[in-house]
């Protein structure tokens, strides 16, 4: 039986993970209470949760070389952690990338490897390779969700839709399918905004599933629907929960911009919380692009 299915042992921890309730993943589940088969998946989920919380060193140090050698899952986790760590420090993580590719080469059918190395590949600019690896999954919704995200980040909505459709056909109403469809919906727009909002709102507003990430998702969907005040409320509660949450800060910046407020403060906060934030990088790049474009014109000021 699929241990992730609704009556499986892993369903709760996996759901918590999916809902980005990382502290819950770490605190509420004890790997030793799971059956032998499920210990490893639980361990992997917990390591990933640690990574999501930025505890890269802990993850790297708790996986020994021998562990990594014997279990590709753990090797993948370790390389994943070190990749994230180096990218958080602003380096390109090419060592980790090389290592990840090596692991992937030998363990193409290992789901953890697919997911983690897939993430690394997608992040380091080779989404095709990531997809090639991920496509080998056997009915894993995590993989499907990742594939969908990669497709979306490449603006291949058609492929994302197709993937989501086939996932829905075998996983019906699973949380990840709903989420992934909502992601797609956020791209489609129109009525899909509202649908996505319902999904996010349900997650964000129920105390058992609420997390900064789900609140941010809700806020984003509200922003897209033009409900700026509501979005601000949601973002503020997300920030109350996690003042350093970079996604919340980034969206707060967007919101302030839309409202025509002064955004310097928001920008500073975001910079302080996440110096490597893609958004800031992008803005910087855009400013340079602006200057470059401007340079083509030579205004005369004096007659």
């Amino acid at each position: 039986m699929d241990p992730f299915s609704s009556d499986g042992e892993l369903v709760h921890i996996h759901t918590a993970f999916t809902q980005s309730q990382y502290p819950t993943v770490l605190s509420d589940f004890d790997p030793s209470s799971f059956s032998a088969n499920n210990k490893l998946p639980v361990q992997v989920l917990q390591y990933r949760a640690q990574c999501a919380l930025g505890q890269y060193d802990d993850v790297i140090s708790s996986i020994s070389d021998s562990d990594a050698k014997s279990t590709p899952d753990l090797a993948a986790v370790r390389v994943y952690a070190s990749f994230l760590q180096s990218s958080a420090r602003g380096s390109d993580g090419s060592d980790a990338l090389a290592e990840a590719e090596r692991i992937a080469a030998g363990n193409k059918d290992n789901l953890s490897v697919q997911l983690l190395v897939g993430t690394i590949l997608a992040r380091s600019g080779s989404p095709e390779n990531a997809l090639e690896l991920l496509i080998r999954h056997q009915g894993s919704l995590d993989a499907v969700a990742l594939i969908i995200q990669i497709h979306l980040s490449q603006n291949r909505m058609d492929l994302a839709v197709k993937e989501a459709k086939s996932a829905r056909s075998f996983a019906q109403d699973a949380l990840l399918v709903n989420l992934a469809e909502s992601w797609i919906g956020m791209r489609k727009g129109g009525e899909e905004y509202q649908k996505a909002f319902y999904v996010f709102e349900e997650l964000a507003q129920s105390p058992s599933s609420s997390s900064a990430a789900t609140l941010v998702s809700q806020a984003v969907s509200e922003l897209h629907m033009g409900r700026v005040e509501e979005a601000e409320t949601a973002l503020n509660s997300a920030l109350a929960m996690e003042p350093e949450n970079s996604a919340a800060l980034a969206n707060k910046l967007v919101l302030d911009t839309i409202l025509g407020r002064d955004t310097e403060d928001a920008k500073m906060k975001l910079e302080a919380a996440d110096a490597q934030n893609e958004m800031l990088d992008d803005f910087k790049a855009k400013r340079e692009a602006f200057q470059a474009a401007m340079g083509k014109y030579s205004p005369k000021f004096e007659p």
Partner: protein
Amino acid sequence: MNTSTMLTKFESKSSRAKGIAFHPKRPWILVSLHSSTIQLWDYRMGTLIDRFEEHDGPVRGIDFHKTQPLFVSGGDDYKIKVWSYQTRRCLFTLNGHLDYVRTVFFHHELPWIISSSDDQTIRIWNWQNRSLICTMTGHNHYTMCAQFHPKEDLVVSASLDQSVRVWDISGLRKKHSAPTSMTFEDQIARQAQNQADMFGNTDAVVKFVLEGHDRGVNWVSFHPTLPLIVSAGDDRLVKLWRMSETKAWEVDTCRGHFQNASAALFHPHQDLILSVGEDKTIRVWDLNKRSSVQSFKRENDRFWVIAAHPEINLFAAGHDNGVMVFKLERERPASALHQNQLFYITKEKHVRSYDFTKNVESPSMLSLKKLGPAGVPPRSMSYNPAERSILVTSPGDNGIYELINLPRDASGAVEPSNTMRGQGNAAVFVARNRFAVFNSSTSQIDIKDLSNSTTKTIKPPHGTSDMVFGGTGCLLLIAPTMVYLYDIQQKKQLAELAVTGVKYVVWSTDGLHAALLSKHNVTVVDKSLKQVSTLHETIRIKSACWDDAGVLLYSTLNHIKYTLMNGDNGIVRTLEQTVYLVRVKGRSVYCLDRAAKPKVLTIDPTEYRFKLALVKRHYDEMLNIIKNSSLVGQSIISYLQKKGYPEIALQFVQDPQTRFELAVECGNLDVAVEMAKQLDRPQLWQRLTNEALAHGNHQVVEMTYQKLRSFDKLSFLYLATGDQEKLQRMAKIADHRGDMISRYQNSLYLGDVQNRIEMFKELDQYPLAYLTAKANGLDDQCQEILEACGMAEDQVKLPNAGAPSAPPKAIAPTFKANWPTRATGASSFEKAMLAEGDETAAPDANGYGEDDLLAEEPERNGHLEEAEDDDAAAGWDMGDDVAAETEEDFVNVESTEAGPGSSEADLWTRNSPLAADHAAGGSFDTAMNLLSRQIGAVNFQPLEERFMEIYQATRTFLPGNSGMPPLVNYVRRTLTETDSRKVLPLIPRDLESVQSGELTAGKNAMKANKLEDGVVAFKKVLHLLMVNAVSSQAQAQEAQAAIKLAAQYVLAMSIELERRKSTGKETDISSFSDDIKKRSLELSAYFTVPAMEPQHQTLALFSAMNFANKNKQLGSALGFANALIERGTNAKFKETARKIKAVCERSPNDALDIEFDTFGEFDICGASYTPIYAGETSFACPFDGIKYQTRYKGTVCRVCEVCAIGAPSSGLRLTI
């Protein structure tokens, strides 16, 4: 005396059982054992539910509470324990007895327990407050048994002192019942009682002492309703006692036990006494005649205890090795079925009939009271429709039968007349005028005519124990391990079948099949006794009947189940109580219950009908069932799959994965392909490949290889199918991929020597190239190679290469078509479905069938469409450039998919001619380009923030998968639009917000005379509106108006600021030089020119008027005053203006001549702040319309700071 077999329902193996108690409602018994264990059994299922082990030593007494989940036990550890079987633990222990506790019983209504003990006392305990409330002394030896009377306040006890005592405990009840009305007398009486209590003899007083046993008495019980007592003693006697209000006496003695009698009790409903003894027998006595009715002997085990179920006909006896639960009589009502009529015998031994068509029960037709002894119901009934007579057998009196004519009309329970009877254990009609009687004592079958005279005698096979109808002219003879089919006419055995323990036989309506029922097995046989199927049930099988369609329904203790001829079985419904099925009709099952009442139960026959239709291949019926019921579910799919009907299961499944599996299983490649396409996973393609290969369907194989990008396999496939053209294409693809090995392989397949040589050369493998050329006799090539290597031919030593081998040429064009296979597809089921579809002409009849019919065209070609299109275009073999293109097409699977698409931001720039939308799309250079064309923008520095702001406002960050950067989404202003050609970005700071924000702020600054702030605000307005979007043309005009207005304000304010720059806020400028004075006065005048709103112009005029007035420019002042009076909006200002006007009119002359014509039409140059008169050449800013002197052409507008003055422009677009 009859020592017939006992109807044992349950037996357990254990150590000696000393106490037994039935649960009043559930099928449970408690058994207390000599080994200190208490067992709780489910006697219906035969399972041990629980064990309770807390006593130390043998447990002799046990009893269930009637209503609460409690039981009590008493043991040789002197302890009485009260338990909860729900929590499965001992609740508390009652201590007090000083020796073994023999029996314990609950009171039927009070919270009391009575116990008897070897300490010679009987004690009554209140289990609610866990106290001893009465100790009854009097016996002078062990008290072996003490029980409450079921209704009255009496206790009966038995003791080894050979006496039975009856005690009156009404005093105890009074004392312990709640006080009601407390009259004075009551109180006195109560006190007196208490007084007497001190001596301990008024609560329970001995009423009678019954003496008659010669030895110790082991057991005593009350009759449930009559004033009777039965006792059993070591004198081997069972004695019956009767009592009245005042006395009690011995009625009779039942003699028969030849060892100590252990226990005795009354039958709860019938006039019978049951007793057990150490002589290993259970004996049943007639209460009225005190004669032995039945006895049952066990081989080795002495009986110690007996208990009766309070409600139903069940008893339990404990012996040396366990417990047996049994019943005294059969409860199965004798019945016979004929067409729509059921004849049956009720508990009162009345014959009745039941009409299935009308569902009514007839009144009693006959009374069979005289048939067999009382309490022994008839066993079987056989009906003769020709004579309207019945043949009834009864086990009483060693087996009798009676032939009775039924009255025409049911007119009450009349005694039958003209009956004929005889000895026999079984009797059945075998023909219209013949019946057979089996006699087990003589082991012979007599065939008799209707006058009861024997016409024929048959010696049945040895061991025959029963006889039933066996089809026309035949009998089925039943022996313990065999069943024989016997022909009466030929007097010979036709067939035999080894079946153990057959008890009943049920024939199907058409007489072709029979079900042989034994305790745990159903064996279906045909009419020549060939076994068709058999099944085993762990639960006892009670009865069976045949559905008209040939499905056997049978009942177990708790279910009605069905079985098909092929042995498939399943549950139809659960039963609350045991019933005996007699007939099934549609959704109704008719049955008799244990009280011989006809009942109708509703069932859902869909499941077994469906399965039957499947077995019989009645596809139309299946289809009908599928359409009309909610049968289709996971279970039926797995059933179909398991039973080898994947093609039918396929029709039910929606889930692509399952459909794929089923399609592969039943070889339906078309569906498999369809599903694989839908799922698109490598593993599935792989499986499909294997399957298609096995089918010889190389076209599907080709497609799957393409999907899997197995180039080598693909090449080999083309080689195998002889598809040269495609092989060549593979070669090109290999070339394109730069895969040398693959290229080499393909050229080998193609026999393309030239290509191989080229390849070797490319790889600098000249020796191999040379060898290849040489071997194929291409001498000129050899020469070339040698030259290239700088070697001569004699330097090369070659092994003998032999003749070059060319690949064999394909003889048959296999690639053109698949291997011919027998038409798969349309199974008969699908045909049925199709037929159905035709009838209703429904296009959606179903896709699968249609596929099969139309298979030729779309399916065959479907997978190859692209490839063959290419063939038609014949593009790829026309040369290299084209080949590269087609190659893209050929491996289209990935190539079209790969690579990112265009983001929404790109769409925006595509969808809109608005600079703002391009800025939102991040395409800053095109945005600038647009602005440049529209409004001649050249200096973008002031717009940087605006651009960034727009860019920044249109991207949100949606958290996605853990570890991945958030998903960027694009905020739209077209909220309901999903057409990608129409989506547009949100532009922050719309017109309304600018109007209410900066524009207002600017005006306020004007009012507050904070002109620097005002200029900033209005410039902001200009920049915000320059890069913006509005929704309508009207709004666009409004925006343009706002732009113009803001520009005018900027200009006005700039002029005034310029003036203040030179003279400050001084109103009196007489101290300055004339130039400055003049300029200052001019600027002050120009300040009134820009088209500000009237109230602000008023301010300007007022200020200019005052300024002019103060500086003796009375002419100008007069002009301003006139203008103020004419256009002013402020009454106070107007008042001042009139005064000044009055003053000025006296001498309207300026002290200094300034360049200002109050009446002239002119604009002010935005740069030099000089007048530009009408008709004078000037250039304007294409954006804000501020005019400039010609010399400023081409420079940046001073007001908007962005556009080039006088630049060619098409006009700002703000709306799509």
